[in-house]
């Protein structure tokens, strides 16, 4: 590896009203290395990368490319300097083909017409060279998330980018896909590309990164060679204290059945097929039941049906013996259901409301906060300050901060504080730790286990196998809207779960469906 830096960000300072997102941070990227950028939520990782990609202009500091000072004012200038970025949420056109998505914005033309043939040849050549195999005529909406990510990578390569930024690329992938991505990244680095890899997953850093820059609260903590360090040290540098990486919990003591789902069916709004197909299960007090599966296999619709956000097609849901399948959301909540939604900005929060107003979203009508139709502002403030303190929600101006201006992790903490404090018997938690750092994850895991130990039930939906395996007392795997297997976390492996999640294996567990019967005959 050469010791020349392709990108140097020196003494970058970026401020936002009320907060210093980056304070005097320097980052140096060598040619052909995979450089991880590690930090808690709100540590300033995304801000720093946005500065490099031209989305923000820093107040202080310079950026050097190949030793020359450059100024990057917008993403187009970043692209012309051959800096490319794969965003956490892909920027692809669903109805376009893979090829069209790759050339979008950098089309080759002949007499003003698109020259797809030249582009096709080039994309094929690139995909062969870097081992990114993909059907380039397929439509984006028809291919898996993992494949879509390859399209994003090919997009960068097509533009001759040699500095590739990956913003939390593994959040949406299955274990198998993650392994493949790691291999691809290694190939890319081997071919001379330099990679900046934003993550808070320590395993991935240990697996692929050469060096790692660690940020904490907008400041630089240090740069380490990955081969000279270990996970414990990294997490300590990131959080500033020692973190429990393995969840500590006692054996669960299950009580009576709290919720029973009986042959639940839901229809997909877009494709008009059954997105949830005859799903039945029950959950007892004192257990954490986890629904595992690849994103988009009906978990979302299942939860929408149970919590009442969408209407169900058929089936029954009993909570404490009451059929709630067609009950209003408010009544379900009052009966003892609390819900940490998957999409925190769409459902979980009102971004333009203050933090305190968000914290009372499900209790503003109770006598504690309402009197004669008026809000009791003093009580609301007091309550908000209590939760902010208890759950360590950090924000610029405390209770009156607009939630929109808070970091993603703290937004999530606000939701969790609100939902846990309602003290409901059943907690439905969908990806409660998505986008959070190890410190915050540790806290949330502890709280979920505390809920369980208090005799409540937790229905957890998670895409992270580590979380599934370490936290749950029972695992159901969902594939294409059906439950395809039930597992004891102590007796199964990541690989086994992965096979079920991908649909390569299925059990005729105790919930036979019509389709299974037909196949079985």
């Amino acid at each position, binding site marked *: 590896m050469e010791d020349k830096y392709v990108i140097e960000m020196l003494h970058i300072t970026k401020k936002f009203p009320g907060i210093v997102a980056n304070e005097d941070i320097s980052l140096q990227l060598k040619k052909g290395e995979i450089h991880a950028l590690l930090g808690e939520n709100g540590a300033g990782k995304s801000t720093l990368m946005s500065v490099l990609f031209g989305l923000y202009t820093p*107040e202080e500091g310079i950026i050097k490319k190949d030793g020359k000072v450059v100024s990057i004012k917008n993403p187009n200038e970043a692209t012309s300097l051959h800096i490319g970025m794969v965003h956490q949420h892909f920027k692809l056109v669903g109805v376009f083909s893979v090829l069209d998505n790759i050339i979008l914005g950098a089309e080759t033309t002949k007499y003003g017409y698109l020259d797809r043939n030249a582009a096709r040849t080039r994309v094929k050549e690139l995909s062969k060279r870097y081992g990114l195999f993909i059907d380039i005529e397929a439509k984006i909406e028809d291919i898996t998330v993992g494949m879509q990510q390859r399209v994003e990578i090919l997009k960068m390569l097509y533009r001759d980018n040699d500095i590739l930024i990956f913003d939390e690329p593994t959040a949406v992938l299955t274990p198998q896909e993650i392994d493949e991505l790691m291999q691809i990244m290694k190939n890319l680095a081997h071919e001379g590309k330099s990679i900046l890899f934003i993550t808070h997953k320590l395993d991935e850093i240990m697996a692929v990164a050469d060096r790692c820059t660690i940020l904490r609260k907008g400041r630089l903590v240090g740069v380490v060679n990955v081969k000279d360090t270990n996970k414990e040290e990294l997490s300590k540098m990131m959080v500033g204290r020692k973190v429990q990486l393995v969840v500590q919990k006692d054996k669960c003591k299950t009580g009576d059945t709290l919720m029973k789902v009986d042959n639940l069916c839901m229809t997909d709004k877009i494709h008009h097929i059954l997105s949830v197909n005859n799903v039945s299960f029950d959950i007892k007090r004192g257990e954490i039941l986890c629904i595992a599966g690849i994103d988009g296999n009906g978990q979302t619709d299942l939860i929408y049906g149970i919590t009442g956000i969408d209407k169900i097609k058929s089936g029954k849901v009993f909570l404490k013996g009451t059929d709630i399948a067609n009950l209003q959301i408010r009544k379900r909540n009052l009966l003892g259901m609390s819900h940490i939604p998957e999409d925190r900005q769409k459902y979980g*929060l009102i971004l333009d409301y203050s933090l305190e107003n968000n914290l009372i979203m499900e209790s503003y009508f109770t006598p504690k906060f309402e009197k004669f139709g008026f809000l009791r502002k003093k009580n609301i403030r007091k309550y908000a300050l209590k939760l902010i303190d208890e759950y360590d929600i950090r924000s610029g101006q405390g209770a009156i901060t607009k939630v929109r201006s808070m970091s993603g992790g703290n937004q999530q903490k606000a939701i969790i504080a609100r939902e846990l404090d309602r003290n409901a018997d059943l907690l439905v938690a969908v990806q409660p730790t998505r986008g959070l750092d190890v410190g915050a994850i540790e806290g949330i895991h502890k709280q979920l286990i505390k809920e369980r130990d208090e005799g409540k039930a937790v229905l957890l939906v998670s895409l992270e196998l580590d979380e599934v395996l370490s936290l749950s007392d029972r695992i159901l795997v969902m594939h294409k809207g059906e439950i395809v297997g039930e597992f004891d976390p102590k007796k199964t492996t990541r690989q086994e779960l992965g096979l079920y999640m991908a649909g390569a294996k299925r059990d005729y567990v105790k919930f036979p469906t019509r389709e299974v019967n037909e196949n079985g005959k």
Partner: protein
Amino acid sequence: MENKKCVSPKKDNFFLRALKLEGVQSVLASIVCIIIGLLIGYIVLLCINPGGAWDGIMTIIKNFMGFTKTSLRLKYLGQTLANTAPLIMTGLSILFAYKAGLFNIGAAGQYTVGACACLYAGMVWNLPWYLCMICAIIAGGIWGALVGFFKAYLNVNEVISAIMLNWIGLYLTNIIITGSSAWDTTKHETFPLSNYANALLPNLGLDNVFGGSKYVTIAIFIAILFAVIIMLVLNLTTFGYELKATGFNKNAAKYCGMKEKRNIILTMFISGGLAGLGASLYYQTGIQPWYANSTVPAMGFTGISASFLGGLNPIGTIFSAYVITHINSAGAQLDTAYYSAQISDLISAIIIYLCAFVGFFKMYLVKILNKDNLQSKSFKRNKTPSDSSNQGGK
């Protein structure tokens, strides 16, 4: 900890500190809007007749304040206030729905059916003024609730159904009024309301205060009272909390179990009721009879401008409604040798057009002010070179 130090306000003078308040910024944006409107108006006057332009624009700004006699000034002030009251109400109507994420372009139609209800109640049923007023509120409210119903249960876009209901309301009003005993078939308008003294809004002797203006009544106080009530409802009540929550994020409102359908209909009922009340505050002063119009009264549409120019704040709406009425009515004072009276309509049209930019001006202002703020901070930092690079470690 370090963060806090950087954020703590440096010693700004009072002026700079005031500039950072959101309210002050909103007011500034509206004022900038009015000034630009007048400036463009002035340029238009210059183009038509350079000689009289300055006098012309000053006449428009001064309006009745240009009169030498105090009693005359007061009289026209009274007149302007009488015209302001209904505009405040339609402005509030738009604002209230807007806070719930609904664009009530139907305020004009709700205003029309409100006019129909109060005139019919007053002149055919001979009801006293307060019952006429309640009729207007209910009629406007129902007209609004219809829009809300279609939106909530059939997912019909509120703008489209409201525009159609505007016309339905207009022709329905024409049919009802022209067919009733209130219609003067010779003049093709309703009989003057002064024949039905019961239905006239009381003026509590205000006509004496305002130089004998016949049309100044308690209407303006009712309008101001409602502005205050709306502000309280939006900011202090549970209903206001739900309403704004629905406006900001419909999905989250649903997620936390608010009855969104009921809220949409109720919001539109109240919004329509406010517009209906506006009509009552206008027609029950007797300022104008109902003509069988072939267009929907403009008051409802001007209400859109009033609410936006007022920074979507109920109290701001009071002032913006006054400014719009003031400039609109100034046309009569213009020197008709040089300009047609419509020029003031043009200027108010420009201001109204610029109302759409209030949000934009505000955004720009905030940007400039914050930038200023940051620059001065970084300047301060440069003077004492930072040393923090080593502190961050373990």
